């Protein structure tokens, strides 16, 4: 329950940040998603139905979009780019199914507007494997049956890759804590911990 509160606070923080950013108007330069802008009075009321050009770099590919500024990164991926590997589980930053990597950091793509990520390197589940060779985390998830229905899986894997990048997890207890933003209703948690531990320990024996 501790964890749940933390997750919600993060969500509110991100929403406050994004609302601030939108009100401040849209600038051409990239906006760091972790540094919320100070809200200033807009000169013209924002029209939610106006369109802007947004260029995104997703899985190493440039994507040109004409979207309303309020479109979330998640909905851009799923509804505009057919990158449906990233899942919508709650649309409120509470379940982690939409986790993607932005400049190597894991974020909930439902809690952030696409327009905030101009210039950033966005990696989704579709961008982790190299051709037919799975990323070690993907291979470990298969080998240890770290999923059942598979719907939370892309988010779990992106989150786990982010966890490895962060370098904080030293024990199974750490993995459990740091993976608690990603809900798995099928209850594959023990196998997820095994898969993440294996990758952390650098074992390469995961069957592909």
């Amino acid at each position: 329950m501790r964890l749940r509160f933390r997750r919600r606070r993060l969500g509110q923080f991100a929403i406050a940040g994004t609302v601030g950013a939108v009100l401040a108007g849209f600038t051409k330069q990239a906006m760091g998603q972790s540094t919320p802008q100070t809200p200033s009075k807009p000169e013209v009321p924002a029209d939610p139905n106006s369109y802007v050009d947004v260029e995104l770099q997703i899985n190493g590919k440039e994507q040109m979009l004409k979207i309303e500024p309020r479109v979330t990164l998640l909905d851009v991926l799923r509804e505009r780019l057919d990158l449906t590997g990233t899942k919508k589980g709650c649309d409120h930053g509470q379940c982690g199914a939409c986790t993607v990597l932005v400049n190597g950091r894991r974020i909930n793509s439902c809690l952030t507007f696409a327009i905030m990520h101009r210039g950033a390197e966005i990696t989704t589940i579709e961008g982790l494997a190299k051709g037919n060779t799975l990323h070690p985390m993907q291979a470990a998830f298969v080998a240890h049956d770290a999923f059942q229905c598979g719907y939370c899986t892309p988010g779990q894997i992106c989150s786990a890759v982010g966890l490895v990048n962060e370098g904080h997890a030293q024990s199974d207890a750490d993995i459990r804590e740091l993976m608690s933003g990603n809900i798995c209703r099928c209850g594959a948690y023990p196998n997820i911990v095994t898969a993440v531990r294996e990758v952390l320990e650098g074992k390469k024996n995961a069957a592909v």
Partner: protein
Amino acid sequence: MNSSDMKSVVGKPLNRVDGHAKVTGAARYSAEFPVAKLVHGVTIQSTIASGKIAQIDTRAAERVPGVLLVMTHLNAPKVSGEAGGDRKLPLLQDNQVRYSGQHIGVVVADTFEHAMQAAALVNIRYDEEQPALHLKEHLDQAYVPQGKIPRDQPPDSAHGSVEQGLATAAVKVEQTYTTPIENHNPMEPHATTAVWQGDRLLLYDATQGVFGAKKKVAAVLGMPPENVRIMSYFVGGGFGCKGSTWAHVVLTAMAARQVNRPVKLVLGRMQMFGPVGFRPETMQQVSLGATREGNLTALRHAGTSITSTFDEFIEPVAKTARMIYACPHIETSHRLVRLNVGTPTYMRAPGEASGSFALESAMDELAYALKIDPIELRLRNYAEFDPDKKLPWSSKSLRECYQQGAARFGWQKRNPTPRSMRDGNTLIGWGMATATYPTNRSPASAIAQIKADGTAVVRSGSQDIGTGTYTVMTQIAADALGLPAEQIQFELGDTNLPETPVSGGSQTAASVGSAVHLAGTEARSKLLQLALMDQASPLYGATAEDVIAQNGRFLLKNKAANAETYGAILSRHGLKTIEARADAKPGEEKDKYSMHSFGAQFVEVRVNPDSGEVRVSRWVGAFGVGRLLNAKTANSQLIGGIVYGIGMALMEHTVMDPNRGRVVNADLAEYHVPVNADVPSIDVIFVDEQDPHVNPIGVKGIGEIGITGSAAAIANAVYHATGQRVRDLPLTLDKLL
């Protein structure tokens, strides 16, 4: 010729055959099919629990750019929500509001954002009526259900006289246990994409039963069933809520017809608390009587659960009490109370999960009253045959489950005195409970086709809701066809394939598996007959018994050099394929045997004596579930059931606002389900069990037994840790302070 001649693929811990698709994002769920000219639907839900829509103003919504339709009861096409059996569906046919969260409108627009914006602008005025929302306030209106409980059983049962049994008892336990509304919350929200092609309808639907969806949608829309096709290749969890076809599925089809475009409609997480079912609140009275030696003299389990004002669902809480313990006097009953809520539905082990909390808690109370070890108490009342049906078990390994589970857990080191075990300041509690779930099976069909290139395709409608259907059916087909698993493609999730039942009641493995086994065996035998009668074949003249099938080849048992590949036989006969269809159905076994899985749950909890926080720290579950199809996926399913039980025991509780019946915790931040940090390592033991009677493949089904007994085992452990008996789920810390 038989499968035992070859190395069996069944049982092996094969990685999921759909694993690669799931970890790369390639697996497409129902909202993820690229469809030309697709537009987006969003439903509007009622904000009151009872009354009428007095006025609905859609003008502002219709002005939002891209909006194509605002469908309400004022302009919706006429359909019959009661047609086709199963659930009765409110489908915008009148202005009645029957519960909070009822769909009262659908907005369709070019983008999801426009549809959401417009839905928020629809202005509704209600004539509100006083809703009935509380079970306890309406107990005087409890009634005997019109329907039956599962397996066509009457709601009440009686063997002997419980009053008489209680009168002779030396020790009695008579208590009331309650369980709250719980919501399934599969990670994939309900989603439907409706595509009309003339008078034909294609639905990509997140469903546990493609054929049930086809029949229901056709009946409601007044269409010939053959004009409706349902596809569902991947389902992101169901747990029961995707077992019925709910209103949004039909509404999507209606909207798509109105706008003459394909429509995708995905329920938001918050929208899933009401219109797609839930585990109903229950109140359960358990009365146990026993001799000093611990022999039960009386067992009564009386359950009351809630249902909607317009439909009936019975949570069969007392079903297990009919068969689980030997006792001369057993009575069970089920009553319903109608409230202004959506219709409840099956949720993972409906009845068994909620009922076992009450019964297995009561057994623990009786063990303490008698000062007998809880396992010993259960052994003294071990049912050697089904006391309700008076039939022998097809197989039962419960004794072995108790023994092996207890040994692995270290149960003999338990000091039974409450509050006697500590780790520093932390209270330690060990609890146990019995688990059981019936073995179900329904008719199912499959087609197996061997191709000239030595591969095979096996097809059967069915669904994979995370249970591993793709994988275990591939394994069954591999053994039946005599092919390596990699050579087999198994297809499911489409009503154009042979018919199968809903993925519910833990019956897919038994039902579809039997059909796949029979179809595969038959296809292989047809191919072999071609060879045996063909002078050009090295197998010519041999009998089927002389031949082994292995890796896509037939060879003579006694002369392995006489061999031929499947491909060679087909090519020589100028055939591209050979195929067989099997229509499998249950036989007389259900009249001869009582068929159930059994298990024993052992749990350690750690309770903070200052805050009352309960943490589950260790779990051992031992289960006798017949033949295992895949050791790896089976282990995952049992773990998953137990995790679901941890949620049920410690956190899950849908809370309604007492005035308007709005769910106040309708999201995943406030409706708590277990997260990774809530779950310890879970040790699952599969007790070796051969069941020759249940079905042709000897499987009993494993999707639901894992949750049964889980909540009671935790409550019993909490009593052991704290000396406090909590009879009201969930077992949150406020109840321990």
